[in-house]
């Protein structure tokens, strides 16, 4: 192996060197992303360490444009030889594909000029024993809540930190550090009469260690969610009002997020193609994508192409106001980027959410459940039964039967089906319980009616 270039402080220099090399290799434009970081993960099962993982990793991605042709490559080998080869290969690869009229970097004057500190990094360093202890505590809390909790898939604690450097041939050079701390536990409960088992899980994830929920609160919530599923049964096939809890409602926001992605739209592969400025949902529905939430799990000072992130109103009072776009998909649709380029090293930019959420309403979850005479409260969804082209929706579900405004008994082995367009239009109530545990979040949502298939 030849000389290794691995000094962190050298990454900006490395980026400009490679950009210069790409230019000499025939690139008319180029950008480069370098990511490195450390990860630690421990899983404890039944009180003993089950798995402990530790690593440092680094990765570099190069994208070149030769006129209107482009290619992307990546490597984890930062030796000078390997990087020289990478530059040559990328230029050769770009020459092998056809011209694409809208390809290219964003315009030079659009690049992020300021790089605000959105508070993504926490320098807290936990030693191995401390992290094992946290994983043990979260599992112990879950195991101790109820004697029907008999087993566990484990308690986990993960921490990671890293930095991203992005540079391009317009002279843009940006950099930020970020960190993440997370904790989860997956208890198993056994029905004392039938022996049937149920599993659920609960978790928290934060950029700042100090903001992380206590292991005890996460463990107790996991146990509560698991035990309440015991004795679940099927219900009859019928049309019913359906309440999605905040977790499953978050998945609906995920579906919306895919449907407003510029790439799905210009390919005609989204049921929301051509729906801009049209009514999507009732007027109390407003959805934002906000890349500047301080400490947000999806926040970043600039996007995967170096454009400034921002707050975009996706749905305003029920009307679809904006798609999520990067430069390429924006050009395809004749629109400006919304600063949503998401870039995983080695891939072309695509569109991704930053912090994407449904604005909360005023009702408590209990208030919403009270409005349902007979219906379903959904807490789990499984499967991939969504056709994004048509919006047709059919997924496996579990949750609770609602009888006269109260949760009556747990339900499983059913499906819920409808069409996403009709489901968004059918949103009747929105809860006040918005909490971010990821980049996409939602409060509780009540939908007027869906088809429930069971017995």
């Amino acid at each position, binding site marked *: *192996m030849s000389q*290794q270039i*691995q000094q962190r402080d050298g990454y900006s220099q490395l980026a400009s060197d490679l950009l210069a090399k790409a230019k000499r290799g025939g690139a008319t434009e180029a950008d480069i992303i370098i990511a490195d970081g450390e990860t630690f993960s421990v899983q404890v*099962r039944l009180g003993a*360490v*089950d*798995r*402990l*993982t*530790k*690593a440092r*990793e*680094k990765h570099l991605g190069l994208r070149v444009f030769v006129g209107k*042709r*482009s*290619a*992307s*490559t*990546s*490597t*984890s*080998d930062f030796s000078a030889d390997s990087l020289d080869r990478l530059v040559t*290969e*990328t230029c050769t*690869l770009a020459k*092998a*594909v*056809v*011209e694409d009229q809208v*390809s290219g970097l964003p315009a030079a004057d659009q690049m992020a000029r300021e790089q605000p500190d959105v508070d993504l990094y926490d320098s807290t360093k936990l030693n191995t024993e401390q992290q094992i202890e946290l994983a043990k505590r979260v599992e112990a809390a879950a195991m101790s809540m109820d004697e029907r909790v008999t*087993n566990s*898939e484990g308690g986990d604690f993960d921490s990671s930190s890293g930095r991203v450097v992005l540079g391009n041939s317009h002279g843009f050079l940006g950099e930020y550090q970020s960190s993440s701390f997370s904790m989860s536990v997956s208890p*198993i409960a056994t029905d004392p009469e039938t022996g*049937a*088992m*149920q*599993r659920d899980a609960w978790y928290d994830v934060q950029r700042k260690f100090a903001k992380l929920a206590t292991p005890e609160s996460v463990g107790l919530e996991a146990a509560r969610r698991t035990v309440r599923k015991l004795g679940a049964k099927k219900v009859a*096939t019928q049309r019913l009002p359906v309440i999605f809890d905040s977790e499953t409602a978050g998945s609906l926001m995920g579906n919306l997020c895919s449907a407003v992605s510029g790439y799905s739209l210009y*390919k*005609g*592969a989204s049921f929301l*193609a051509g729906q801009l400025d049209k009514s999507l949902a009732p007027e109390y529905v407003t959805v934002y994508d906000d890349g500047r939430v301080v400490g947000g799990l999806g926040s970043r000072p600039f996007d995967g192409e170096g454009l400034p992130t921002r707050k975009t109103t996706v749905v305003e009072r029920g009307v679809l106001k904006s798609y999520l776009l990067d430069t390429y998909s924006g050009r395809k649709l004749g629109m400006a980027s919304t600063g949503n380029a998401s870039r995983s090293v080695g891939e072309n930019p695509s569109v991704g959410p930053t912090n994407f959420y449904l604005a909360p309403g005023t009702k408590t979850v209990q208030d919403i459940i009270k409005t349902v005479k007979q219906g379903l409260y959904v807490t*789990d969804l*499984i*499967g991939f*039964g969504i056709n994004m*082209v*048509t919006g*047709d929706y*059919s997924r*496996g579900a579990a949750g609770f039967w609602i009888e006269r405004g109260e949760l009556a008994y747990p339900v499983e*082995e059913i*499906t*819920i*089906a409808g*069409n996403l367009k009709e489901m968004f239009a059918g949103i009747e109530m929105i809860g006040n319980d918005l909490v971010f545990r990821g980049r996409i979040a939602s409060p509780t949502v009540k939908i007027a009616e869906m*088809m429930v*298939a*069971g*017995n």
Partner: protein
Amino acid sequence: MGELVQLTSFGLTEGEVLGALGRVKVRDVDYADLYFESCVSESVSMEESLVKRATKSVSQGVGVRATAGEKTGFAYSDELTKKDLELAADTARYIANSPRGAEQVPAPVRRRPTRDLYPIERVQAEVATADRVSLLNAIDAEARRYDPRIKNVMASFNTEYKVVIVATSDGTLIGDVQPLSRLQVTCIAEENGQRQAGSFGGGGRVGFQFYHEDDRYLRFAREAAREAILNLSAVDAPAGVMPVVLGGGWPGILLHEAIGHGLEADFNRKKTSAFSNLLGKRVASDVCTIVDDGTLPGRRGSLNMDDEGTPTGRTTLIENGILCGYITDKLNARLMGIPLTGNGRRESYKSVVLPRMTNTFMLAGTSDPEEIIRSVDRGLYAVTFGGGQVDITNGKFVFSASEAYLIEGGKVTRPVKGATLIGSGPEILTKVSMVGHDLKLDEGIGTCGKDGQSVPVGVGLPTIRIDEITVGGTQQ
């Protein structure tokens, strides 16, 4: 015979590797291994009749693992110097109670896999980008020729060339070269403002010529176009419990979700699987025999050896309805005292080994497929599926049809829109009353996710009749 992979291709000597292995295999460590991997992935893709994207990714690194009792210590590094190996070894052995007292590790026996299920020369694997480009262009033309209502064609061709070496504390040093490729086509059809999509794809541990055999690539294009056009006229799917006939091939994803995951040894050792106490018990009707077989030449789920250096094999999971085996890796086979089946797999050097499926399928039965359809008065005939998922603990699984038809009066009638099927793993196969003689393996598109790790897998199924399963349509 498999190629003898050289450690020198990772810039290391046998002495250095053995040194690191000795460092991690301390007294309380039961087993340790080092997994070296270098992987080159390439992709070209087309949309709007333009092949406009090409990517290439190179990664290499080592994963160092130690197991002690039920514990696993694991570290990985993308640097392969002696110092990095030692650092990783120190981290991995942390889980052992006594971090001192390095053990003498037996000098490894250099072996090569005894099989060569995917004899592809490197030169064959490295297809010129221009050839891939013309393949995708031909697919675009074929799909549009199929029907003018096809408005967009998206296709991608992905290849991966992986070189691995495993050095184990039980005395083995073995390597393998694992090529993998996949061609995927999606068509969007449009008529009267209504849009529909159809997808088709395939591949395996095969060379580029595979896609040209009998113009396979053009068939993929026509199949994707056909599904998109067909779905334009699909009616709403029914909802409720009904008999379902599954076509051969990819619908075998039923087996993967309903029982395969539940029979992975780790869940059973931890007693978190709905199948935990069912060994020797009836979990399927007596017409069902199901195997996991990693030894089929060229298949997507096949391997000469698993990622612990164990030769893959053929494991009978269910024989005439009786649950008879789990699939194992070294850790779980040792802890459970059951046979090692060669199913220890990992996504990459960055991930730990887990027991995983290879190619999972049901053996052919004796029924005539047409007779199976005729036996249903009102039900669903499902021939293509999207993804599926299972909750291991309560056994509930789903899988979603992307091409399905109503069966009315013993005849296949109208196409229906996609619907999710949901059932219970330990029960569903007891409701299989007929198994066709037409076993088919899938075309080679499956990717299985577990614990955040993706690995390529295969499935297969003859035409079968399930007497009742819940279908998640919208029409009562």
